[in-house]
């Protein structure tokens, strides 16, 4: 289904998002594939149980054999029989800076992925299409690294205390003022881990008697934060505004279940870019709904901050909206800033409340000073305050790379999910065997990609995910595209039935529409 929406003037630019339907034959073959694997899984389990085959799992201690078993056998069925076969596609160890090209440590397995040994050889200059390095700030030389080195020699690596006790350094205050300025909000607070930012602050904002409306495909940290808060959670279909509106109407009209009391507050949890789908949230419509039904919006910009918008301020700028409309703007520093940690920005009352009542402020160690310095330097670079135009150039380069790469892949005939402007590009694989094959074939050709299967995605929708970066030049992208084309032909991955007419080389212009022929 292809949406090109201009919903009543809410959108100032075309919103092109596509999730092509799985072809019927492919779906059937995928199920057959999983069926065969499950049968073989049972067979191997049977053989292991009757000692025909050696069991290579780690086992319980002799002294504790009569304790209640720690793991259910069935829980691990998927792990033992399906995941173990293609385990070498994940946890690949690298030994250089995770920039556009990366060095990987070679590892081999002589017992079908049960154990790995390192040969000691290093595979050099693998093109890195898996790291979240959107603006190319993962560098080991340059202004950011030098500033971080200076702060490291002055402050040391750790902090050894919490924010509320003795861990609030002057660097943290500087960072928070800068983040607030960057986002265009009144005030901001920074935390040491992006995952923990969600799981520790959502419980501080909502509690029992409140309602959380969360998108179907929200990240594990948002789901955990929502669960820990104790509020009622209702899920709306992914990016579907009719579903969200229906839930809002029902909630206000009918109140809490059974007692019918009105809800204390309603919080909508959405993400800027969904990392498995590559879709962008329909923010103008969400804000219109939020204002109509008087609820609060929590926007998780983990992937979209720095990556969207003409000056990299995220999805709010991308749609040309006012940052004050979003009640809680959350994001992480891991992806576009090349550091680690998360932040929350919003009105001063909100941040004062979080300074007092956030779990992280009271119990968790504050951020490490060199990491803080990296964020400060890279943020100033993006804003142009360091006197150069590097930041601006990188944001433009990322946008160009995104559009070029997506267009070329669609022309080749692959099924690509997601929005045209999102730097996360999921390429559908579907069949379980192709997951491992794609990863290995691309590595043979010196390109590192990320492949994902169940349980991160629905069971038949496994995919390969490319993360574009401003550090990728056009030549690198062309090489990658050539290899992807070759592997796509080899593995028969070109499932798309809508052939796009290749556009003549036009300059990148936002009002260009795709021409499709059926």
């Amino acid at each position, binding site marked *: 289904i292809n949406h090109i929406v201009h919903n009543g003037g809410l959108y100032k630019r075309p919103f092109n998002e596509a999730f092509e339907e799985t072809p019927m034959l492919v779906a059937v073959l995928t199920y057959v594939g999983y069926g065969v694997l499950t049968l073989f899984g049972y067979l191997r389990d049977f053989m292991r149980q009757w000692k025909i085959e050696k069991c290579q799992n*780690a086992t*319980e*201690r002799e*002294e504790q054999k009569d*304790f*209640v078993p*720690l793991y259910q056998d069935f829980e691990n069925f998927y792990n033992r029989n399906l995941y173990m076969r293609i385990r070498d596609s*994940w946890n*690949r*160890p690298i030994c*250089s*800076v*995770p*920039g556009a090209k*990366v060095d990987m440590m070679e590892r081999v397995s002589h017992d079908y992925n049960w154990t790995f040994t390192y040969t000691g050889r290093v595979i050099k200059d693998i093109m890195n299409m898996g*790291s*979240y390095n959107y603006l190319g700030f*993962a560098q*080991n030389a340059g202004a*950011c*690294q030098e500033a971080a*080195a200076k702060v*490291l*020699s*002055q402050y*040391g*690596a*750790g902090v*050894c*205390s919490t924010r509320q*006790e*003795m*861990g609030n350094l002057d660097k943290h205050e500087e960072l928070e003022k800068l983040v607030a300025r960057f986002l265009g909000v009144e005030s901001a607070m920074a935390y040491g*881990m992006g995952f923990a930012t969600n799981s*520790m602050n959502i419980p501080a904002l909502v509690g029992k008697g409140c309602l959380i409306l969360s998108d179907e495909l929200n990240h*594990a940290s948002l789901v955990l934060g929502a669960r820990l808060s104790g509020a009622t959670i209702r899920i709306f279909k992914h990016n579907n505004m009719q579903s969200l509106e229906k839930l809002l*109407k029902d909630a206000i*009209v*009918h109140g809490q*279940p059974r007692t019918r009391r*009105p809800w*204390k507050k*309603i919080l909508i949890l959405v993400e800027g870019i969904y990392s498995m789908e590559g879709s962008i949230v329909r923010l103008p419509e969400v804000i219109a709904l939020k204002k109509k039904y*008087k609820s609060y919006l929590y926007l998780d910009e983990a992937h979209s901050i720095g990556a969207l918008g003409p000056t990299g301020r995220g999805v709010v700028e991308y749609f040309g909206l006012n940052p004050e409309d979003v*009640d809680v703007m959350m994001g992480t520093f891991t*992806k576009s800033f090349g*550091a*680690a940690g998360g932040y929350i920005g919003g009105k001063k*009352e909100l941040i004062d*409340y979080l300074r*007092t009542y956030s*779990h992280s*402020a009271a*119990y*968790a*160690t504050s951020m*490490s000073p*060199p*990491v803080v310095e*990296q964020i400060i330097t890279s943020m100033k670079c993006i804003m142009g305050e360091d006197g150069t135009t590097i930041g601006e150039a990188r944001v433009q380069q990322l946008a160009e790379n995104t559009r070029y790469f997506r267009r070329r892949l669609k022309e080749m005939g692959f099924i690509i999910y997601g929005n045209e402007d999102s730097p996360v590009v999921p390429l559908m694989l579907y069949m379980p065997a192709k997951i491992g094959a794609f990863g290995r074939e691309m590595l043979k050709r010196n390109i590192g990609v990320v492949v994902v299967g169940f349980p991160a995605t629905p069971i038949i929708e496994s995919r390969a995910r490319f993360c574009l970066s401003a550090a990728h030049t056009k030549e690198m992208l062309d090489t990658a595209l050539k290899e992807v084309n070759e592997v796509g032909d080899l593995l028969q991955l070109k499932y798309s039935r809508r052939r796009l007419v290749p556009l003549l080389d036009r300059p990148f212009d936002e009002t260009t529409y795709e021409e499709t022929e059926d």
Partner: protein
Amino acid sequence: FQAPAYHLILEGILILWIIRLLFSKTYKLQERSDLTLKEKEELIEEWQPEPLVPPVPKDHPALNYNIVSGPPTHIITVNGKECINFASFNFLGLLNNEKVKSAAQASLKKYGVGTCGPRGFYGTFDVHLELEERLAKFMRTEEAIIYSYGFATIASAIPAYSKRGDIVFVDEAACFAIQKGLQASRSNIKLFKHNDMADLERLLKEQETEDQKNPRKARVTRRFIVVEGLYMNTGDICPLPELIKLKYKYKVRIFLEESLSFGVLGEHGRGITEHFGINIDDIDLISANMENSLASIGGFCCGRSFIIDHQRLSGQGYCFSASLPPLLAAAAIEALNIMEDNPDIFQTLRDKCERIHKALQGISGLKVVGESFSPALHLQLEESCGSRENDVKLLKRVVDYCMNSGIALTQARYLEKEEKCLPPPSIRVVVTVEQTEQELDKAASLLKEAAQSVLN
């Protein structure tokens, strides 16, 4: 042959009923069908939510942070005043160590700052693998796993093993991270009185009688005991040998949280198992954070491969979060090197703790809470003034007096509404190897003075 008439009639009615069901609208239990569209719109107009956050009073004690200018080392500049640091958990003084800083610098030059990905997707660096190996070797276990945030370590480890329906026996004084891990696991929590083995045994016996009523359920219900080596909230240690006996008697697994005791207790700093001389394989999982003795960021869990390997796919803070920045991992490795090369610093630290513990006895109005060899002590009011708010204000005055005279202290901070068993307000006193004997004596005498002037 003909079917009897009533048979045909009955079948006819059945078919008509099925057709009716197929074409009738779906029946929703919650739909209040007596509301018109206009009434619904009025309800939507009238509904007023609470404000997103309630206002916080300007003088709330936790709102105004101390601002530390410069590194939080032995001599610390707090709010513009230079003081001796008795508040940061820098037990072994490794925060300012030149070797640690140069190892981190080398790593920064090679890898940059961030890892730009979780462990599964090109976020595993050789430094991470090396740190895990070194930690496993140091603690003499099979395997170790690193997390990028100290709080998330135990909060992700517990839900990976304990699920809905399992039973966890946990000490009342367990820290907040453990409480959050237990909440995320949705298991049955049974609290036992702090360090009271008799109470724990009573709970275990009760569970045993429950099991006999329903043996089939008991066979699949996992049981765990979660304790800390050195409790953050009370400063004392858990009686590990008795716990091991209870473990084998009632077939319960033990999870040990060693954030404060790692690098403090034991001859070589291996924690409470070395302190009591217990075989490390008897403990199922040891979890600690690297933010205290190792003066880095992050945390680790160690134990047998059978147990630790499971967290690589089910630990939420491991799979769904970016990995630890390499410079912090390199700093931790160098800190471990220093710990292994100088095993006498642990005894030096313990001697200093004994000294200040003795020196702080007998202050009128304040009592010392914690073991004599614990580097993180609490000073609580002997008599409360009536309300927690007033106690906090009084302790703040003591802390301010000390800060004005050059000793940096802090109150122990808690989230009052969220803790299960809220400890009484207290001043935290932290001992590090870098403090000289004169400084320890000065701190003790200053606290005596402060207590005299404020509390009398």
